[in-house]
């Protein structure tokens, strides 16, 4: 266990031993919560974002029906898709099929002063068009959901790599002593959609304290946060204190500093038992706020309710918040299901941005909206398949230029255009870290012989053009 601590502190030569000594000198019984403050002492670059909210549109929303207006594709609707574009390229469920163009079915509109083009399925997001930056030139390396999620979250398809939230928490720590620093929520009310895996918020080879904690939509928000039946808060407090007291006695004999850490973790655990219910209690949220998000039943596990919870988490110092909405895998029935998914998310996404802004938090909160990939301009029956080399996302908040559309795809939207504005998943990671004050080259951990980074081994870039 000692190696563990030195590992964590040991970002530099010999630091381990020094940090170790100062820890030992602490009073053993002090029931203090020792918050992880991150391995990055001084930011590498100026900090713009103090927290990140990732609205993960799992399944891959169709960019042609939200943010990437393609009139040419509309003209080609129902006609064969030019083979020149697709030849030799990887396809998913369209393998071996005749490729037919599917035009956008939602009308697009120019919104705000910036005139960003957004489809009418997203009127609320349209209303914040001047605050968001749309990137149309995203591309990924993985064409199937499982590895694409892994790549989007951990920058690698090899399992056991830390997710981006874990990296941030490891690097920067959290600003809360009462809540986990990395929280994940999955909206309920959708079924028969693409599965997701807890590896998407796994700490991988980092210590498990950096993993995302999934707040459950049913039962206790956090696993085992509820006291056993018949145990009141004061009784539980006594038990926790007794454990701390007896452990402190053990420390005098065993002298293992892990005991002190443990005493502090029991304190944090106890605090979570009151802070989590307080967090999830929406009673103090005024009606107009609930209305702004479009929340029908507070705490119902809907995307809207989770968005409000995300704001509450952000207020309380949580570093990385990830919301999943598993509704976008429209292989079929696109024209019915896509607007439904848009309706479930549009208002709350916009409300979150506005709410953060009203509270003065948008300046230092980065909001990322997007799927693990997008969809093909070729139809697949009544839907679209998933592509690999073009999709759209948007960013808002901390250090992001609002009202900007970045990057282009070809006139049928099949592939990004190489004009210096193309953005890879690793570029997105590098940019996110940059906004958080981190040079992505310098947040690394040695694992299996390599200095592993969120952004992998290949060169990637911070997308400076979208930054203020």
């Amino acid at each position, binding site marked *: 266990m000692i190696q563990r601590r030195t590992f964590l502190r040991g970002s530099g030569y010999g630091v381990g*031993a020094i940090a170790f000594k100062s820890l030992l000198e602490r009073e053993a019984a002090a029931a203090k919560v020792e918050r992880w403050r991150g391995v990055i002492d001084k930011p590498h670059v100026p900090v713009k974002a103090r927290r990140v909210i990732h609205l993960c549109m799992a399944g891959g929303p169709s960019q042609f029906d939200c943010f990437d207006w393609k009139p040419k594709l509309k003209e080609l609707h129902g006609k064969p898709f030019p083979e020149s574009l697709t030849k030799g390229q990887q396809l998913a*469920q369209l393998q071996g099929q005749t490729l037919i163009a599917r035009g956008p079915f939602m009308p697009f509109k120019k919104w705000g002063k910036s005139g960003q083009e957004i489809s009418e399925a997203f009127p609320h997001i349209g209303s914040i068009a001047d605050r968001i930056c749309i990137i149309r030139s995203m591309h990924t390396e993985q064409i199937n959901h499982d590895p694409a999620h892994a790549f989007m979250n951990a920058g690698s398809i090899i399992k056991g790599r830390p997710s981006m939230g874990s990296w941030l928490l490891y690097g920067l720590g959290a600003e809360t002593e009462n809540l986990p620093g990395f929280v994940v929520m999955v909206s309920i009310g959708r*079924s028969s959609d693409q599965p997701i895996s807890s590896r998407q918020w796994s700490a991988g080879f980092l210590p498990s304290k950096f993993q995302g904690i999934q707040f459950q939509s049913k039962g206790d928000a956090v*696993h085992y946060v509820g006291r056993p039946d018949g145990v009141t808060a004061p009784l539980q407090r*006594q038990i926790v204190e*007794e454990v701390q007291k*007896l452990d402190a006695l053990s420390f005098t004999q065993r002298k293992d500093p892990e005991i002190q850490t*443990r005493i502090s*973790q029991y304190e944090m655990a106890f605090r979570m038992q009151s802070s989590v219910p307080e967090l999830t209690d929406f009673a103090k949220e005024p009606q107009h706020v609930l209305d702004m998000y479009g929340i029908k039943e507070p705490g119902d596990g809907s995307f809207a309710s989770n968005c409000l919870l995300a704001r509450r988490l952000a207020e309380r110092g949580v570093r990385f918040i990830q919301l999943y909405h598993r509704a976008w895998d429209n292989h079929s029935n696109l024209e019915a299901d896509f607007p439904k998914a848009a309706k479930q998310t549009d208002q709350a996404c916009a409300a979150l941005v506005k709410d953060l802004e009203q509270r003065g938090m948008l300046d230092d909160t980065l909001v990322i909206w997007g799927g693990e990939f997008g969809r093909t301009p070729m139809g697949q029956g009544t839907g679209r398949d998933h592509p690999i080399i073009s999709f759209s996302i948007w960013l808002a908040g901390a250090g992001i230029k609002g009202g900007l559309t970045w990057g282009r795809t070809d006139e049928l939207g099949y592939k990004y255009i190489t004009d210096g504005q193309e953005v890879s998943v690793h570029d997105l990671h590098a940019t996110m870290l940059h906004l958080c004050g981190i040079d992505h080259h310098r947040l690394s951990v040695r694992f299996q012989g390599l200095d592993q980074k969120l952004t992998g081994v290949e060169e990637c870039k911070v997308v400076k053009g979208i930054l203020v």
Partner: protein
Amino acid sequence: MHGATLAFLVSLAAAAAPKKVQFNRDIRPILSENCFFCHGPDKSKRKAGLRLDVREAALEDGAIVPGKPGDSELIARINTKDPDDVMPPPLSHKTLKPQQVAMLTRWIADGAAYQPHWAYVPVRKAKTPATRDQAWGKTPVDAFVQAALDERDVRPSAPADRRTLLRRLSLDLTGLPPTPEELTAFTADTRPDAWEGQVDRLLASPHYGERMAVPWLDVARFADTVGYHGDQNQHVLAYREYVINSFNRNKPFDQFTIEQLAGDLLPKPTTEQLIATGFNRLNMVTREGGAQAKEYLAKYMADRVRAVGTVWMGSTLGCSECHDHKFDPFTARDFYAMGAFFADVKQWGVYSDYKYTPNPDLKGFTNDYPFPPEITVESPYLKARSQRLQAELGTLADQLRARLAASRDETREFRSWQDGTRRFLAQYPDGWRPAPALPEKKQATGMVRIAPGSGWLSAIRIDLATPPDYKGPDAELGRKIGVVSVSVTHNDQAIRFHFADSATKEPHYLGGHEQAGIASGWVVPRAKAGQTRTGVWELAQPVRVGIGDTLTVTLKGEAVGTVKVFTSPFATFGTQAPSRLAAGKRFAAKGRVLDEVYLLSTGWAKDEARRFQDVHRQLAELRGGLTPTLVTQTVTPYTTRLLPRGNWQDDSGPVVDPATPQFLPAPVNPDKRRLTRLDLARWLVSRDNPLTSRTLVNRIWKHLFGAGLSPQLDDLGAQGEPPSHPDLLDWLAADLVESGWDIKRLVRLIVTSSVYRQDSTARPELREVDPANRLLARQSQRRLDAEFVRDNALFAANLLNLEIGGPSAFPYQPAGYLENLEFPKRDWYAEKDERQYRRGLYTHWQRTFVHPMLANFDAPSREECTADRPPSNTPQQALTLLNDPTFVEAARVFAQNLLVLKDLDDATRIGRAFERGLGRPAKPDETASLLKLLGAHREHYGQHIEDARKLVAVGIAPRPELDAAEHASWTSVCRVILNLYDAVTRL
């Protein structure tokens, strides 16, 4: 963990007099960390054509001038202030510490001697060194460790006390703590070989194999589900049993290796050897629609190479998937040549058949289907369970027979039923009465109305036949599989069935498992399409049919054909059972069958009948103890190409044949035939291979000390850490091979050493010198691995189920935890019997969502080969121990076990609880403190009896009659004990 090494090296440098610089220990880590990325083995990224990993090359370029640091460009470059020239370049954000610069300078001054990397040179058994204190430890292990301590003037620690020692040994070798009785016996044992006696006892325990299996299951990436996307269930429990049994029987590790990688290629492989080949099938696989087989085959191959690299070679071969290794001499070609060994494994890239990616081999596969190829084997656990259930039926029948005999009324009823039965059998000797269809004005398709005749109705049989002149859908049976489902109403009331079966059915899968019976209908196998298909339906509760009552049988399906319906007053089980009754004479005799039949066929003893049905269903599912298991089957190998930059779509790379890494001694292959997995396995355990024995010894050392002699268990390469005691590692590795790969001998050697038996208390004077305890001047305190955290709490409560092997179990788990899984949807039904308390290593391992208790305590998802579990220390662990119903129930039962002991005062009870839960007596201040807590909780629960009742109601374990307030208060005490550091730590 690199920080630890550096701290270690620095502190050793500070603590000890300067010794001769050693390349492997002192120099290679610096060069690897700072230089090899651009000046190492990977030619594609090499800068300025300079490489520093090979002496000749470094000398040729003048980077190093032996004996003349002042003339060496390397030294000039690391010392310059010019940002354009300085090395490492500023962009790398790496800087050399003054000590490192001094070390490099000294090394060059001394002549810049290189050493081949320690892990790749032949294993050498050095002479055990002389030590100052010969009496301290007598084993070679002691000699090597003590010699290193002597060099630094450090004394080893005193031995731990006997209780601590026995608990340490029991936990390390079996994962179970000692019982208070075992502790007493050992502390009283004055024989000189008392310790060795305990070692031998525990090595012989059947739980030894379970403890040793856990780290092996981590590296084998053993899990119950396939991992990718829908994360469906797979069958592989027999492999886990194989691993446990192999450790228990002390199977030589070379044989263990060969069986797993290539058991199927051995001459006349045994079933056991085939089960072992499940290893090659434990990579994650997918069934995702839209996945491309070729892409996934590349992923599966890469996974296997990484796994073999980690498990046997302690090497990070994965780095070479896209390019030559940057730090170690593995090339990309080595990576694919290793992958080519597995090109013959029968598998599919995508385990399904989609219209956009047809896979005729797996036609008709759904998300509920298993993952072939599998074989069916016997599981001793399942067989024993099956026998136990049979015995339970016997006991139940005996009890009922006694009850029948004791009650005059019931006997009379029974007699009259017997008489009726005899009459029925005289008329219908096979037990089935034909029930012709009633004439109907309007006959709906598939609907038959019958008059079953009065009396008990317990079973219905339906015969489906295809008349020769039939032209309906049935005629298509030759190429279409008919699906038939049945529903029955009695006077318009739906009849419920508890079981149905047919001898002519296609297997039906749910969640990957073949379902017993045909309750919801059945699929007629193509081959039997023309024959009469019979199904038998057993009523959940027998129905008394009155005169004139009718039954309506509705059949839905594409292939119904003509229908004949039979009824029976005898409830039997499955299709076999009616024939048991065929002989009317036998039936008249007294016997078990008779009682069973009476029990199930009438309204008599309803509760027992339900239990009978339940057990019967379980027996049907157990199939006499048979279970399918994933195996490796060999097919013609597909062509393996080197994939440029790991890109599976790029076919431009050269074809590679199976081969072992070029820089290591090659397998003997005079006739140049294509090498096989068997060659690979034999090569891994050949005497010439320096990596396997070192890797294994290092992992076992970690098991017994908390850290490997080389702490990076999965990287013995340049970027790993040199071993703290290289001669010891080599001595043990050599001895292991000489002994015929005898693992128990290795474990015994280590645990009988004085090094192992030292006290684990951290020593203040060593904190600065040796914070990571690499000198081994004490034992280490280790948090138990996740599975054993669970086992220990259940053991304290005497709830732990000590059965070995068998399928994975489903302990309590928070509701909805699997709700984000799809294809198919998943739910979790917590076990309701003794299986609730199975050991942690049998927990259902859902790769995408590992049980939160296990995950919180750092159990890996086993999606990837995992050699180490770095323990963390988190609030989630505290929450788990405080609130997970498993632990609350354990405390509740622990408390009741204390309370049923009569005439003990509170302090004595607390003492007993410590003995049982922590393996040691309570100290006076601990007792005093807990007595106060007990008092406070008594006060609360005395006044709030409802709270007490709620607390003690946790869990399914039985509860004796106890005062609820007292029970709840003691539950609090036990919760504290189970939450303590000492409870979850092996000291």
